[in-house]
């Protein structure tokens, strides 16, 4: 790691090489944060970091060259994204017959992928907003990357309804504009609500993310400015284009920071606006995933038409979203220096506990669906559920149950939920399980409809598979770019939760 910090000792310390100022680690408490004593609030940032340390660590991820792993990984995911893009191009040119859809299963991987990604997308803002409302200080470790994840997942999600309409150039029909017969779109259709809900959600999430970043972008601007004013040499853009990178940073971050100057009069309005934005984002997320669930629940198709769908989809979104946050953060904290000081073992344990709670809630919903299908005494409904568990897609159903309901039960054991490896592995299972959940809901209900003469199996084609794989490429590529160019942690908020941030800090001993 090359560091641009002028002080060699500090530079080494921040790169995780030199002496840190360790905090006491009680025996058996992992990195010092796994303390169960209710009278103790374990540290949220490790190694007694100062304000300057926090600035240097987080800005260092942007200002220093990333590790050797970054470029190959980026090239790989960008290639996957590009291949996915080529398959989308092929689909647009040829038509959606290149998917494995048939007369009966008119929705399959496209909508599965849409709900899968939008679920992940919903989790990020909800995680950040709900933890903010509940004054959970540990949110600072995850909120920025969770919000970024949201934006990228919404981009992936929005791709699928965009391309599944068949004649993509008619996508403007989704907007509230009259068509050539002067007929307005159908405001009673859940598909139109989706358009409003998802575009509102994407916009509000982006604003929430951006607003949180304004002070941190100003920090990056000021640091570039300070280095420029100090003069001397600095890295340039290209050897034959000797513009100092710090100058570009000054312009770009300066533009994005909107002239933020850390005024406390500004902070007051900023905090009020941020809290209200969090307060509005929370019901927004609930509403948007509920509206996505009405795509299914307003129909009268057995297996789709049930009232628990809105909250059950929301619980599933939080579940899948936390799993995705862990999938991104657990490797990141291994790869980036000092990230373990910001994302502690306790953060991972907390998220594992939330996986256990939401996984059990999803399991509760599965059980209730089964129970009410039986209790409702509707033969079609009963068949739909028996078919899910024992029909041709039984393997998908039991994959879903074992990944979503059973695997998080491991987290009843403290040893399991405090092991980053186990948590990562279970998060992989949950991500698989949540994809299968949507596949099970969509495909098993469609492929065994009311009349046996209509029964058709669905078989995915390479176009199905590659567009889905490509969406992962888009997602990870965007996330890597985020880690490289934007503040991955809320610098100002982390400083505010350090013990020395309190204006009354240090008075307890000396008196006022």
């Amino acid at each position, binding site marked *: 790691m090359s560091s641009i910090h002028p002080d060699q000792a500090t530079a080494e310390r921040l790169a995780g090489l030199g002496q840190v100022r360790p905090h006491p680690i009680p025996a058996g408490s992992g990195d010092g944060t796994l303390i*169960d004593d209710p009278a103790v609030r374990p540290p949220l940032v490790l190694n007694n970091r100062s304000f300057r340390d926090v600035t240097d660590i987080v800005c260092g991820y942007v200002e220093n060259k990333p590790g050797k792993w970054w470029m190959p990984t980026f090239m790989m995911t960008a290639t996957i994204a590009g291949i996915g893009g080529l398959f989308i191009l092929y689909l647009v040119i040829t038509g959606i017959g290149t998917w494995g859809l048939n007369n009966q299963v008119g929705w399959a991987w496209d909508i599965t992928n849409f709900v899968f990604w939008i679920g992940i997308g919903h989790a990020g803002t909800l995680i950040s907003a709900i933890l903010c409302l509940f004054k959970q200080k540990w949110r600072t470790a995850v909120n920025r990357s969770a919000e970024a994840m949201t934006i990228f997942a919404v981009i992936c999600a929005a791709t699928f309804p965009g391309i599944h309409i068949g004649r993509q150039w008619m996508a403007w029909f989704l907007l509230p504009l009259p068509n050539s017969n002067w007929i307005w779109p159908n405001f009673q259709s859940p598909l139109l609500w989706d358009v409003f809900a998802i575009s509102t959600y994407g916009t509000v999430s982006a604003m929430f993310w951006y607003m949180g970043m304004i002070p941190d972008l100003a920090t990056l601007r000021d640091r570039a400015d300070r280095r420029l004013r100090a003069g001397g040499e600095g890295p340039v853009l290209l050897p034959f284009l000797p513009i100092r990178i710090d100058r570009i940073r000054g312009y770009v971050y300066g533009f994005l920071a909107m002239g933020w100057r850390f005024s406390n009069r500004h902070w007051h309005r900023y*905090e009020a606006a941020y809290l209200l934005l969090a307060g509005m984002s929370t019901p927004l997320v609930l509403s948007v995933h509920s509206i996505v669930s009405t795509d299914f629940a307003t129909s009268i198709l057995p297996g789709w038409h049930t009232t628990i769908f809105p909250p059950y989809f929301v619980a599933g979104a939080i579940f899948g979203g936390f799993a995705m946050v862990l999938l991104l953060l657990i490797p990141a904290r291994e790869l980036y220096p000092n990230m373990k000081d910001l994302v502690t073992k306790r953060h991972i344990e907390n998220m594992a506990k939330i996986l256990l709670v939401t996984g059990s809630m999803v399991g*509760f919903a599965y059980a209730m669906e089964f129970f*009410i299908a039986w209790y409702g005494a509707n033969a079609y409904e009963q068949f739909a559920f028996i078919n899910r568990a024992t029909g041709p897609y039984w393997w998908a159903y039991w994959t879903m149950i074992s990944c979503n309901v059973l695997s998080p039960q491991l987290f009843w054991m403290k040893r399991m939920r405090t092991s980053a490896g186990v948590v990562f592995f279970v998060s992989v299972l949950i991500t698989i399980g949540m994809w299968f959940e949507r596949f099970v809901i969509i495909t098993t209900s469609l492929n065994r409809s009311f009349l046996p003469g209509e029964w058709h199996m669905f078989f995915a084609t390479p176009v199905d598979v590659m567009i889905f794989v490509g969406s992962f490429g888009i997602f990870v590529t965007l996330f890597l770019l985020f880690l490289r160019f934007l503040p991955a942690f809320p610098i100002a908020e982390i400083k505010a939760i350090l013990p020395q941030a309190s204006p009354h800090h240090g008075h307890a001993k000396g008196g006022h």
Partner: protein
Amino acid sequence: MTHMSASEHVAPECRIPPATGHPALAAGNVTIDAASARSAVRLLLGVGAVGVGLAIAGGFVANGKHALAALLVGNMAVLSICAVAMILTMAFHLVNAGWWAGFRRQIENIATLTPVFGATTVAIAAADYYVLGGSLWGWMGTQYAATDLAYLLEKKSAYLNVPFFFGRAAVYVVVWAILTQVLFRLSRKADAAPDPSLTARARFTSAWGILVGALTVAFASYDWIMGLDFRFFSTMFPVRFFAAGAFAGVAVLVLVLVLLRRRGRLEGVIGAEHYHDLGKLMFAFTVFWAYIAYFEYFLYWYGNIPEETAYFTERATGAWKPFFYALCFGHFAAPFLILIFRGVKRNPRLLTLVALWAVFIHVIDMVFLIRPMVYAGVPAAQNPGLGALWIDIAGAVGMLALFGGLLARRIGSGPLVGVNDPRMTEALEHKNYV
């Protein structure tokens, strides 16, 4: 619960400073003698006995089914409040909350009444079965034997049969009794001497307790409200029941705290900051209720399948239509527009008014869920209409007063605050910064 001894090596700024000796925790401020509560207990229990007695008398002179429904309305209103208190207690333990330490004992007090009002529900159901032969819980009776609904009853008989029904009820009551007693005793035990390991044990109990508690409350709502109309089914129903109780449950907690403050207790323990956050919870739960109630109604409205819409046709278009719109307005719109103001949440007087309204509209919600069953399918001529309103009022007021009396006795039976809570300092210093 492990590593307890290890915490000696914790950095000092990580340790929550103990609140012992804090002036707000002086004995006079956090205790209320049983004698001073006695008059309130007597009055409320008296009103409760008169109300319940009147309702039962109404059952003999007017309509037994109507009287049981009136009692069940009050009973379920109270039970949902208690059950929500039980679930919230466990949730607060699980998230290691600090700000609730000052009112933890009061929410536990409400929670301990859950099994009591579970038992009274069983009594009402038993009266229905043994005295009236199964009229309010229509599936217990024989009146559908000759109708085409007999087929439906037959299909559901594996779940809807009398021994299983009472067996399940017994399980719910026992589970609630165990959960609330374990948590309450751990809490009381800590009053003697500070012991953080008791809080850790309560957290451990809450982990499995919230799972068992949620399941039993869910099935209780199926059995005791949804099951009244055995044709109706909705997977959302338990969530709807919880959402209803949550708004009123926090309101009851606010009322308890306001009353204790008026008696000169909890000075410096409960203040505007705590009311503010409890008000936020009420605000959140009224929105949550609207979300759940809307989607449950809306998905059946949209699907338009007769067997599902029958339930809402009765309630949203017929004689119960005013209740439908009263709930839209009174359970959501009005509290939403009032509680959105910061000043209301921080002012105990205004918050009390909202809390009283919340309890009232919660009873109306239970009326909306339960009462239409009494005269469903009965010729309009046999429906006494407002003529039998006194039975409903007597039943609901009676059960609420009974709840108030038992709660007052419970409050008077021990310290008002778990003074040795390891996170008491956080609760005393609690502040909303934005």
